[in-house]
């Protein structure tokens, strides 16, 4: 709800009265609670106050029912001793999971003192600055249920980033995230290297039965017994012990986690989510909890998404939800950008890119990429709004083409170049000596080095953009009777590189150019819709 607007001086008094009355109404509801200090937004603090009220009312139910004085308790799951958790309500972040559930992540002021053995061996136990713990209050779709309460423990192997939260992995971060229930039942260990999801692990005290798990074709999982994985020195004794645990390690394919993993387990208790909660579902916008396990890990119909790798792509509202956005997501899902940018001698730019749909400087251009003059500003890619009605494959080509422009800018402009960046800069330097003007330099570079890789990506994405229907349309003599040929995709990659200044294109024979044009004309009859 937006705050009331006080546009005129005459209405200031009325607004002040209104706000004062509003404050009195709300404070009268929370008179026995400590007010939460959040200087930035009053509404947020009121919502968080509801979370706090709900937690205070229900937290006794989350505590383990049985005595838990021993270091570990054995059931099918690995359960650590229960540690008291003191949420620091003044330090919180709120965000949404992709399925629409709102999450309040609240910092825990007292660290549990437990840590992975590998972490302990590397940093000893004097490493508080590398550990962060927080409570995740995940609003449930059933408002009677309130929240699912989880514990996230972050272990940084190296520098700890500022403002660590579960939903998005900081760029370049190396570390481990352990997710527990409030009662310290272990749910998952997620390993991250250079900001990328590498693997997730579940510890059990019994070997897993084959029938009790589901793996996707893209997920490699291995089970084995290993030494107890945690070290700790809580007040009531040591966590570590001689016993082994059964560890199931699942590796994300392609170095990127989201969308590639799928694993679930049956049996076992749930997360310990708050039974008997009252009103506790403040503002869950869309409501439906996803059971899609391609991006989640699940237990008893509760799913928690894996954290997202930091997305360097910013979507302007003009781009969000459009056909081009859908095509973009499909390109991302096949790792299309990395396939091409990986050819920049391994360059991965840390610069942000923003996608827009609107007017281009050259109104005849399908898209443009602009360096905004500073590494602190994202590179802008604008797709020409007048030319978005082309076939989906052509739009995919334009997005890919513009992303390569952006990668080139990123590699040559970054303030902290890697060895690969420096190597690429040498290559780029050669082109700046031979050609003048950004278009000529970039396009000659693309023509010489990237046409085949672009063609690879277009060939891979085509089945997702109506490729089989297209192949059926083209299955005639003089068409593509033996299936859509590789040359078709290479011709598509050439589009946009046919400037008079692109030497590689101008060096093609007339017959080769005519062949490219023939393919491009045929490509125009492809399906427009992304789905």
């Amino acid at each position, binding site marked *: 709800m937006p705050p009331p607007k006080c546009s005129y001086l005459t209405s200031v008094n009325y607004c002040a009265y209104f706000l004062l009355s509003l404050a009195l109404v709300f404070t009268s509801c929370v008179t026995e609670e400590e007010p939460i200090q959040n200087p930035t937004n009053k509404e947020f603090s009121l919502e968080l106050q509801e979370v706090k009220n709900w937690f205070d009312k229900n937290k006794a139910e989350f505590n383990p029912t049985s005595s838990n004085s021993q270091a570990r308790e054995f059931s099918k799951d690995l359960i650590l001793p229960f540690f008291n958790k003191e949420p620091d309500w003044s330090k919180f972040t709120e965000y949404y999971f992709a399925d629409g559930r709102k999450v309040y992540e609240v910092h825990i002021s007292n660290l549990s003192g437990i840590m992975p053995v590998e972490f302990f061996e590397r940093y000893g136990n004097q490493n508080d600055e590398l550990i962060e713990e927080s409570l995740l209050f995940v609003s449930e779709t059933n408002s009677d249920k309130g929240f699912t309460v989880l514990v996230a423990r972050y272990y940084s192997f190296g520098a700890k980033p500022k403002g660590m939260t579960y939903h998005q992995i900081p760029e370049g971060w190396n570390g481990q995230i352990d997710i527990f229930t409030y009662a310290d039942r272990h749910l998952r260990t997620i390993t991250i290297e250079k900001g990328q999801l590498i693997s997730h692990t579940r510890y059990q005290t019994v070997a897993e039965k084959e029938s009790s798990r589901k793996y996707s074709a893209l997920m490699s999982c291995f089970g084995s017994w290993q030494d107890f994985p945690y070290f700790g020195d809580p007040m009531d004794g040591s966590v570590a012990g001689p016993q082994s645990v059964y560890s199931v390690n699942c590796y994300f394919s392609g170095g990127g986690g989201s969308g590639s993993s799928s694993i679930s387990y049956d049996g076992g208790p749930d997360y310990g989510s708050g039974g008997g909660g009252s009103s506790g579902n403040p503002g869950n916008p869309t409501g439906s909890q996803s059971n899609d396990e391609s991006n989640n890990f699940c237990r008893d119909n509760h799913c928690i998404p894996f954290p997202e790798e930091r997305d360097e792509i910013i979507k302007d509202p003009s781009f969000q939800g459009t056909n081009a956005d859908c095509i973009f997501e499909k390109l991302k899902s096949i790792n299309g950008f990395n396939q091409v940018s990986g050819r920049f001698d391994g360059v991965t730019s840390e610069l942000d890119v923003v996608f827009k749909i609107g007017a281009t400087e*050259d109104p005849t*251009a399908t898209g443009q990429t602009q360096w905004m003059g500073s590494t602190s500003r994202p590179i802008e890619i604008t797709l020409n709004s007048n030319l978005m009605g082309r076939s989906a494959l052509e739009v995919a080509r*334009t997005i890919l083409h513009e992303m390569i422009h952006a990668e080139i800018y990123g590699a040559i402009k970054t303030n902290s170049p890697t060895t690969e960046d420096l190597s690429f800069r040498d290559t780029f330097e050669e082109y700046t000596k031979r050609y003048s003007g950004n278009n000529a330099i970039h396009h000659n570079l693309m023509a010489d080095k990237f046409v085949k890789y672009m063609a690879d990506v277009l060939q891979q994405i085509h089945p997702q953009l109506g490729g089989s229907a297209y192949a059926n*349309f083209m299955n*005639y003599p*003089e068409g593509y009777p033996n299936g859509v040929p590789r040359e078709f995709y290479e011709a598509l990659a050439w589009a946009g590189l046919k400037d008079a200044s692109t030497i590689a294109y101008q060096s093609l024979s007339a017959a080769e150019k005519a062949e490219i044009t023939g393919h491009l004309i045929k490509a*125009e009859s492809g399906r427009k819709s992304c789905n």
Partner: protein
Amino acid sequence: MQLTISRILLLTLFIALTSSGLAQTIQISDNKKLEYQKNYPPKENLHDTTYIVLDFERELLDIRKEVQDIGDYKMNYIVFTMSYSLPTPSNNWVYFFHMASPPFGHEEYSVNKNSISKDKLLVESDKSSLFWYQNYLVIREGIVILIDLKDWDSDYDWIKGIGITVSTNTIE
């Protein structure tokens, strides 16, 4: 009773003759072949027709024509490539292509030029390359018929037109 039937028949004949007299455009080719009916992607707006008049002898125009063997058929493939120097320095190439074969199956037409309404008529010489870049995706959703300026200026009412698709050189 018999008289009534005769009247109805006469009336029907009259309506049919009147309608054919009013027809603007008659398809005179049969390029879309039954055996290739699965090779023609559906068009979004088959009921809308745009007529483009082009000077086939215009400067900066390249016409490339070939006859393609499509199974048992010989089919025309004609590409008109127009260059524009303004308004931008880019290579502004606009294509009108007639492809009788799949996947376009462009037909040939006889057009009654007197019956074409102005809002359906585009004279290429009046248009910039920018116009085509901004509008070709909309224009191509319907049937587009290309007419040679010579025919348009002739004394004949019924002139030849060929189905085309408008395209542009992609600049990125």
